[in-house]
C-alpha cells in the first residue's frame, strides 16, 4: 500500500524561478510540472536556454544569488518519512543542507571545473560521506575506495590521494559520480553529465550511471539536449521550451506518438540510423526568443508550422490524455472539446 502511495519520489508542481538582474526580471522557469517515478529515469530535454538546467538547480535550491523560486512546490517523498516541500526552505537552511548530497545529489556538466583543484579526490568524496554519516576516516576511506573500484577507476588506493589535475575528463566525471553516489541518494540529478566529454567516454559514463541506478534503485533526472541519450537512458521524458514543459510522457509516447509540434520538430531534426544519406534533416526555423520576452500567447507559435491565429492570442492549457501523456498545445484543447 505504501508503494502505491509513493509511486513518485519527486513531484514538481507549477515551479516558477526568476532571476533579477539589475531590476530586469527574467522568468527562467515559468510554471514547470513533472513527476519523477521511484527507480526510474526522467529525461528533461530542450534547447539551450529553455530552463532545464535552472529547473534542476531549483530542486536543490542551488540557484545563483540573483535567482529564487517565485512560486510552486517541489515535493520530495523519502522512502521512509514524511514528504518534504523543498521549495519552502531557504537555500542556506539546515533542512535543505541535510538533503543535499544525502537524499538528492547532483552531477554537473563540466568535470574540469566542478572539482576543487586543491584537495585530493579522496578528500572530496569523503567530505560528502562524513558530512552525512558518522564514520571514522578509515571507515570512510574503505567505502570510498570500494565505490571508486566499482566506478572503474584503476588503482583506487593510489588515486584516492591524487589531485583533480592528475585525472582525465572522463575520470573526473567518474569522481563526480562517486561524490554524488557515496551516500546512496534516492535521487540523482545529472545536468548534462556527458556534454563536455568525448563520445566514447560519454557511453561509458552513461553505462555506469545506468548500472548504479539498477543496483541501488536510484531515481535519476537526466538533463540533456541529446535525443540519442534520451532514447538510450530514459523511462519518462519532459520536453521543455521557454521555461515550460510542453510535453510529458513515457519514452515510447514521446518517440512514437509525439503530440506537440515542437517535440515533432525536435525529433525530426535528429539523424536516425538507416536514414537516406541525401535526405535533409529538418531544422526548426527561427531562434529561441530572449528569456525576458513577454508573451501574450503560446511561446512557440512564432516558430510553429501548425500555428493558428488563436495561438498568438492566449496561453495554451495542459491537455491530459488517459495514458498519462500530457501536452500543452491549443491544437489538442480543441480536439478535446470537439
Amino acid at each position, binding site marked *: 500500500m505504501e508503494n502505491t502511495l509513493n509511486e513518485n519520489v519527486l513531484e514538481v508542481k507549477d515551479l516558477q524561478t526568476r532571476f533579477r538582474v539589475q531590476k530586469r526580471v527574467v522568468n527562467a522557469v515559468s510554471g514547470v510540472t513533472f513527476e519523477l517515478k521511484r527507480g526510474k529515469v526522467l529525461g528533461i530535454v530542450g534547447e539551450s536556454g529553455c530552463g532545464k538546467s535552472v529547473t534542476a538547480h531549483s530542486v*536543490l535550491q*542551488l540557484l545563483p544569488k540573483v535567482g529564487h523560486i517565485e512560486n510552486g512546490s517541489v515535493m520530495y517523498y523519502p522512502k521512509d518519512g514524511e514528504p518534504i516541500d523543498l521549495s519552502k526552505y531557504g537555500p*542556506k537552511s539546515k533542512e535543505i*543542507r*541535510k*538533503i*543535499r*548530497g*544525502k537524499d538528492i*545529489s*547532483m552531477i*554537473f556538466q*563540466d568535470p574540469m*571545473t*566542478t*572539482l*576543487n*583543484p*586543491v584537495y*585530493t579526490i579522496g578528500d*572530496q568524496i569523503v*567530505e*560528502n560521506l562524513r*558530512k*552525512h554519516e558518522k564514520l571514522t576516516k578509515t571507515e570512510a576511506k574503505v567505502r570510498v575506495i570500494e565505490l571508486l573500484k566499482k566506478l572503474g577507476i584503476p588503482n583506487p588506493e593510489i588515486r584516492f590521494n591524487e*589531485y583533480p*589535475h*592528475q585525472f582525465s575528463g572522463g575520470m573526473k566525471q567518474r569522481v*563526480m559520480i562517486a*561524490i*554524488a553516489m557515496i551516500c546512496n541518494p534516492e535521487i540523482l540529478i545529472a545536468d548534462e553529465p556527458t556534454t563536455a566529454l568525448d563520445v566514447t567516454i560519454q557511453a561509458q559514463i552513461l553505462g555506469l550511471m545506468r548500472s548504479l541506478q539498477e543496483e541501488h534503485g536510484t531515481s535519476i533526472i537526466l538533463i540533456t539536449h541529446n535525443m540519442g541519450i534520451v532514447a538510450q537512458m530514459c523511462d519518462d521524458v519532459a520536453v521543455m521550451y521557454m521555461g515550460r514543459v510542453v510535453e510529458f510522457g513515457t519514452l515510447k509516447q514521446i518517440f512514437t506518438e509525439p503530440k506537440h509540434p515542437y517535440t515533432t520538430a525536435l525529433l525530426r531534426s535528429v539523424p536516425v540510423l538507416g536514414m537516406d544519406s541525401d535526405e535533409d534533416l529538418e531544422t526548426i526555423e527561427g531562434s529561441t526568443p530572449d528569456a525576458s520576452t513577454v508573451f501574450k500567447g503560446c511561446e512557440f507559435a512564432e516558430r510553429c508550422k501548425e500555428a493558428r491565429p488563436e495561438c498568438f492570442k492566449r496561453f495554451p492549457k495542459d491537455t491530459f490524455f488517459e495514458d498519462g501523456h500530457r501536452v500543452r498545445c491549443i491544437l489538442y484543447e480543441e480536439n478535446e472539446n470537439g
Partner: protein
Amino acid sequence: MLKYLAKRILQLIPKLLVISLIIFLGLQLLPGDPITRTISPEIYKYMTEAQMEQLREALGLNKPLIVQYFTWLKGILRGDLGYSQSSGSDIASMLKGRLPSTIELAFFGLIVANILGLLFGYIAALNKNSFIDYLFTTLSVIGISVPEFFFGIAFIMFFALKLKWLPTGGRMAAGHPEFSSRIKYMVLPVFCLGISLIATLMRFTRSSMLDVLNKDYIKTARSKGLNETEINVKHGFRNALIPVMTLLVFRLPILVSGTVVIESIFNYPGMGSMVLDALSAGDMPVVMITTLVISAVTLVASTLVDVLTAMLDPRIRLE
C-alpha cells in the same frame, strides 16, 4: 613537497650569485682607489706608497676581476663586508646594530598587513555591494593613494602627541632592550608601513574571493550539503589565497624600501636611516652592501612565499 622545497632552495643560489656579481661590478665602477674600501682608513692614513703596493699584491687587487670577485665573495660569506668611506667603520658591525631592528619592523609589518588585508578582503567579498564593502573599498583607495609619510606624521600627531597613547619614535625605552618594551614603539611604524599593503591585499583578496565564489566547485561543495562557513573558508578562501600569494611576492621589496621612509619619520634606528645617511654622504660601499643585504633578504622571503603557495596549490607542488 620536500623535492619542491629542495629545488627552490637550490634555485636561490644562482639568483644570489647574480645579485652579488652586479653589486661587485658596481663597486668596481666607483671612483677612487679600491684599497680605500678594503682596509680600515685608520691604517690606510699611515701607509706609504710601497706598503700600499705590497698590500695590493697581498690582497690580490692586481689580479683579474674574476679572481677578485671570488676573493670578495669569500670575504662576504665570512662576514668581511669592507669599510665605509665616510665614517671608516667596518660595514659588518654597522649592519649588526641595524639589520635586526629593520627585519623586526618589516616582519611585523608583513604579519599585520597580511592578517588585516586578507580579513578585510574576505569580509568585503562576502558582503559584496553592502555598506561594509563600500566602506572597505573606499578606505583602500585612500590607503593606496596617500603616501606613507603622511600617515606617519598624522599618526604621531594624533596617537602620540594628542592622545599620548604611544611614543613618538625610537625603538625601545632607554635601558630596556627586552621585546615587551619594544612593542609599544613598534605599533605606529608597523601600521604606517602596513597601510598600503593592507589596502592592496584587501582589494586583491576581495576580487580573488569573488572570482572563486563563482567557480563550479563552489556549487559542488554546496551540493554536498556543506554549510556556508565550510564553503567560504575551506573551498573558497583557500583557493582565493593562491593568486594573492603571487601579489605578495611582488610587494615584498616595496615593504623593505618602505622602511627607509618610516624609519626616518619615527626616528627608528634601522637600515633605512643608515642607507639615507650613506646616500647623502655619497658613501657608495655602504649603499652597495645594504642593497646586497636587502636583495638577499627579499629573495629568501619570496622563496618562502613560493613554498607557501606550493603548500596551498598542489598543481605547483607536483609539477
